[in-house]
């Protein structure tokens, strides 16, 4: 088996974010904390689990991102991926999902992967588009929001359960090769091992210049980023923690919840 896992480095959405007026991009107000998109960690783990159960499997981890994104490739290799592939792009550029999908599809078409995995959605831009776009560009079957998979390469297919509204599951059989976008919770992502991390540091990811791909025109234009314009309608409690606690208690009693 040959598996490609497409991953992304994202800015921690819990940190204080601000819109940089000059570049029109989003950045951390304080020290930036970047990590691997959570759903992508589950995708890497799933690939490693397959590799462990099917000797001879090779796992390539790929990311499209600036220099700093090399860190998520290192982490994937630390978890057990065989190779890292880094399509390097400039830091501030907006890159549309169609462009990213086209680059990954161009790379993957030459590699003859049996399975392409990615996270269901990135936490930063929340688009959820690249996975199905890769599949369509390569004329492959796909499933999004996958919460369970069983590979049956001897039958040339993968059995998939995808999570839909209210916790229901859609059950599918996809012909291999296929693209799956992975929902969080289908496994328990492992921590990288020291020996794998040392190997990752030594071997390094292969760097691919994004300019080697034919240009793709973006199909949408970002006008601006902004803070949410919804006005806060609720009451913000002020004072010491103790005072706030007393205030909340009073409100809940007045509303007869307590």
């Amino acid at each position: 088996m040959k598996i490609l896992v497409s991953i992304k480095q994202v800015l921690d959405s819990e940190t204080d974010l601000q819109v940089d007026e000059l570049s029109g991009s989003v950045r951390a107000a304080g020290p930036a904390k970047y990590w691997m998109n959570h759903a992508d960690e589950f995708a890497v783990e799933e690939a490693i689990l397959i590799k462990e159960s099917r000797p001879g499997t090779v796992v390539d981890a790929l990311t499209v991102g600036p220099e700093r994104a090399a860190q998520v490739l290192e982490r994937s290799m630390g978890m057990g991926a065989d190779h890292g592939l880094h399509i390097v792009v400039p830091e501030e550029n907006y890159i549309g999902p169609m462009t990213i999908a086209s680059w990954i599809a161009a790379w993957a078409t030459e590699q003859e992967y049996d399975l392409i995995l990615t996270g269901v959605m990135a936490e930063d831009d929340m688009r959820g588009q690249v996975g199905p776009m890769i599949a369509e560009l390569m004329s492959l079957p796909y499933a999004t929001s996958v919460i369970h998979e069983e590979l049956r390469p001897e039958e040339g297919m993968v059995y998939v359960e995808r999570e839909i509204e209210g916790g229901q599951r859609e059950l599918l059989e996809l012909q291999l090769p296929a693209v799956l976008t992975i929902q969080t919770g289908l496994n328990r992502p492992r921590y990288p091992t020291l020996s794998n991390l040392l190997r990752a540091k030594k071997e390094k990811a292969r760097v691919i210049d994004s300019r080697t791909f034919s240009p793709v025109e973006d199909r949408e234009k970002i006008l601006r980023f902004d803070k949410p314009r919804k006005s806060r309608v609720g009451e913000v409690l002020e004072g010491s923690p103790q005072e706030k606690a007393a205030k909340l208690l009073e409100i809940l009693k007045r509303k007869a919840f307590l």
Partner: protein
Amino acid sequence: MDESIVVIVEQSSGQIAPITYELFSAAEEISKYRPLKIKAVVLGAELQKPAQQIASFSGSSVVGVQNPHLANYNAEISKDVLAGLLPELNPIFILVGQTTRGLDLAPALAVRLQAGCITGVEAVFEEAGQVCFTRSLFNGKIVQDLAPAAAVTILTVQPGAFRAKETSSPTDGSTEIRTSTAVPVKTKTLGIRKARQEDAALTQAEVIIAAGRGIGKQENLALIERLASLFPRSAVAGSRPLCDQNWLEYKKQVGLTGATVSPKLYLACGISGAVQHTVGMQGAGFIVAISTDPNAAIFHIADVCVVEDLTTFIPSFIGEYEKA
């Protein structure tokens, strides 16, 4: 043929998904800025009834394409059918629900139609003579405005963003049912498995105390439990990340892929307020949010906002309660 806005109806076994009605409201919003005819397309196995229902609700012309392999959603057949049909209707905008099916279909369909794709649309506005769209990023902490840059754009519309009309159109639309004989080759749909048992405690509770990633450690769930014990007819719930970490059972999950609840009081502890969570609880009567992050999106829908560390705030609250 006139240029149009096409609404893709979401239905299963003849039951029309609520998002469909919201799509028509979004379409009308767009047509305020760009007067385009609103049409609808519905796919499925048996469509007489749902197509008629949509035609009388919207007053639009509805095209239904029936295929026995569309008794359940199938991406491959849906794409083939829509790629054949849509160019006939000459759409500028194609509206799809931001649901697990809509999100499965829209990006790939956009590639097929050489269209643009904007997911999670929450608002429509006009700028420089163009219809533009707003969507959320970073769990709702940032919004983004976009303008289409392709001749055709597929939009997935966030549930709850556009209010469905309560009354039907005064005039009936038309329906046309076609038949497709396409057979899936690479994508076989085997059916749907019902949800794991719904937690009756959750849907019947009058007070829900919900925990999110902000609780930090699994041990802090004990605090949530203690807080819940103060309220009669209460239950503990959580957001998806907690269930993913096995801190809570999945049947306790509130949100898009979990339960939809509407208790009298929803107390959100350490929940960021990502739309995947809020779609499951925004119907609550009264919402209290506790978070250390003053910019958390949950504060936009909360009636009472407490910017505090819940590990110290909840014990103070319980202390105050016991003192009283």
